[in-house]
């Protein structure tokens, strides 16, 4: 376990260095981008004097290693710098956006887990259902999340009056109760969560299906059936329980992919999470914000990997103890 932790720490340090370096290696400059595409809005064009002042203010006039040292020292003190584009502390923006991303990420993963595993369990002894679902979910697994988002937006949300098209809640709404507020939030997350769930369900389905199929051959199942146990009991107590390890591992391993999907889907539905922040940070070369978002995403994925490892160990131990 100690070795694993050291590996994670090493991975974190490498990621930290890459996060700092990559944005600065990107061509483009936070203060040079002023052109626009048709329909977009133009920008204030800074004079050379003003650019110099701004570079000095954000510490971008210093040598690379000095910038790295300053950033590291600030980060250690919990200061993630000032966003060049949003003109607010990076930490403040991230804290404001992170919960929204975590909500649709967590909700879609949980739903995908339940639906994917449920469908796999249902198909275990229904060959016709498996024959139908397998190709459908195979195709769905290849659809990019933003595409399911766009399709849901135009085919569902735009046609159903009560489904909000965008945002995380009704702007300027006055709620009569906490429940009304929660309802509004849940309703707004319906489409983003559905879009993410649709593309995540197949992962759990295939993992669970493979796991179940391998268990179906086990002698203890034959024994259980020979004992006359009910099919429902066999599925929950024997099949599901013994197939839990790869499914739980899949849950945590899915976090990395789901983070990427969340970022794309948030942009489709103008959902105020990290996705929209990341898009704008890349577009405007907002170095401190890029570092912040990448760092947060990396921590999220590393923690998930560590959690997957931990849960697997405990489940394995549990199985050994059976």
């Amino acid at each position, binding site marked *: 376990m100690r070795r694993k932790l050291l590996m994670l720490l090493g991975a974190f340090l490498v990621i930290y260095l890459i996060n700092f370096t990559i944005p600065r290696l990107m*061509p*483009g*400059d936070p203060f*040079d*981008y*002023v*052109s*626009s*595409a*048709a329909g977009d*809005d*133009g*920008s*204030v*064009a*800074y*004079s*050379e*004097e*003003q*650019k*110099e002042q701004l570079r000095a203010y954000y510490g971008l006039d210093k040598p690379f290693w000095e910038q790295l040292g300053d950033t590291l020292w600030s980060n250690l003190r919990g200061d993630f710098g*000032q966003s060049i*584009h*949003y*003109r*607010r*502390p990076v930490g403040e923006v991230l804290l*404001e*956006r992170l*919960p*929204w991303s*975590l*909500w649709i990420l*967590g909700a879609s*993963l*949980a739903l995908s887990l339940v639906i994917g595993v449920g469908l796999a369990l249902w198909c275990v002894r229904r060959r016709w259902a498996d024959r139908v679902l397998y190709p459908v979910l195979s195709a769905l697994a290849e659809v990019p999340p933003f595409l399911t988002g766009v399709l849901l937006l135009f085919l569902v949300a735009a046609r159903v009056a009560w489904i909000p*098209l*965008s*945002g*995380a*809640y009704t*702007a*300027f709404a006055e709620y009569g109760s906490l429940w009304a*507020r*929660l309802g509004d*939030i849940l309703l707004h*997350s319906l489409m983003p969560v559905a879009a993410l769930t649709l593309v995540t369900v197949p992962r759990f389905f295939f993992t669970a299906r493979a796991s179940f199929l391998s268990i179906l051959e086990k002698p203890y199942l034959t024994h259980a059936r020979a004992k006359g146990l009910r099919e429902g009991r066999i599925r929950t107590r024997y099949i599901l329980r013994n197939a*839990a390890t790869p499914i*739980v591992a899949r*849950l945590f391993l899915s976090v990395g992919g789901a983070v990427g999907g969340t970022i794309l889907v948030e942009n*489709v539905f*103008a959902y*105020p999470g990290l996705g929209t922040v990341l898009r*704008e940070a890349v*577009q405007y070369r907002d170095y401190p914000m890029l570092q912040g978002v990448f760092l947060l995403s990396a921590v999220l994925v590393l923690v998930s990997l560590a*959690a997957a490892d931990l*849960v697997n160990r*405990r489940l394995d*131990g549990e199985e050994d103890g059976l």
Partner: protein
Amino acid sequence: MKHIGKKAVSLTLAGALSLGLLAGCGGTEQTGGSGIPSGSESPAAASEYRVDTLRLEGGTDYGAPNPFLHNSRGPGTAKMRLVYGSLLEKDEEGDVPWLAESWSMDGNDYTFTLFENARFQDGEPLTTADVAFTLDYYQEHPPVTNPLGAGEGWIVDHYTVVDGQTITITVKEADADTLSNLGSFVILPKHIWENVDDPYTYTGDGYLTGSGAYSCTAYDGAAGSYEFTAFDGWCNGTQGAEKIQFVPVSDALLAFENGEIHITDLPADLMDTYLSDPTIGVVEKANDFGYKLLINYEACPDFLELPLRQAVYAAIDRQSVVDSVFRGAGTVGSAGYVPQGSLYYNEDVVQYDYDPEAARAALEGRGLSITLLCSDGADDLAIAELIRNGLTAAGVEVTVESHDSATRDQMVNDGSYQFALVGNGGWGNNPPTYMRTLFSDTAKFTGTSPIYMGAIGYSNPEMTALAEAQAAETDFDARVELFRELELLVSQEIPIFVIANQSTYSMYRTDYYDGWMKTYAYQQAEQNRLSYMAR
């Protein structure tokens, strides 16, 4: 330990859901805290205003609407200018009073007299002490939108406070744009900012207390929603709406159809559909967006020969850019740079027709090979392809190199290009403000802005003299005359190629609110303060 696996899974899932829901609850708080002037607005009855609420497309965080915290894109500036007042404003014809009721000019001296009842949104009177303080403060801390210059480029020499209402600002060197520049910086409340050392991070008390016609009553950066409420202490006229709200939408056209927003862009392809509806009104941003082709003459010295430059125009089918890329909404670019429809447009500029035979005669056999830099936007790539086709047919080998816009801009600023395609809005703005930086050898931008920079490696004393003279000329008619001479010369010498200008349109429902306008210098109706005033 037997059930720890199950528990771990359950707890993880429950935790994620709870965290999300709790976060969701917290996130609906309107941010802004104590900075938003809570007691400043006591909205009068909605009947005072033409409409209760105007809703526009939001969803993007353009920063807090104060002079130091809004972001540098147009909508960020526009929101800040709703909250903060400047001395003057622009209407369809020229400069009009805003916080200053009158003004006069005498050489380098510009004297402004404030409205007697001008005050800030916290009720404090707005006097020339605040104007003077703002000048001093901006010199030390330049705001995002900065018409006064910075460092060596600071345009003010000194000021003289005559009394509480009148101030004379003396500039280092007056030119035709000085009044506009002095009239457009926004006034800060001295009593709030005099104790603030770092305005770029300040979000304490009064950080959104403005001097404008609307106060910011809600700002939610995460949702990109803003609410502005008519300030009942405003000194100069009545606002058109009691509230202006910017709300997040995923598809603006759908939102307009559903009545969620009251104005939006009208796509060229749908013009016939919407214009047949008598309740739909349109504000045309005529030729406001444009594409130009820059040549780096240091990298491509062959093109210093005028016949070759003329052949470049002849090789490019610019009408097809208008027809196929702009869907007919626009015009072929004027070789004199200023687009058709502008007050300053000279209709006598040289016209260059598409003439592939003439282009081939001039360019074929010269062994010319160039790289065309462009952005990776769909329209940019389509136009770059049309340019490539035209030049290739004329015998020039062309390689198209595309990058994202930020990279393209930096490469242009660095001079790392041979030919570069650049698109930007604002062509319908006041042309004199940009012609000098494009065509004067002494004042042209190099390395600071791809949309306002001049041609690298090209020099023309006559063009420089005209560009400088028109900028210094304060008599309007004389300036227009000089300006048109400059356009004619530019069209003859063509150091920069204008490919085409695109018109875009904003549509609104006339039966709800029809106050949308464009000024003589800015065509974005949604970003003009006077669009939100009862006129």
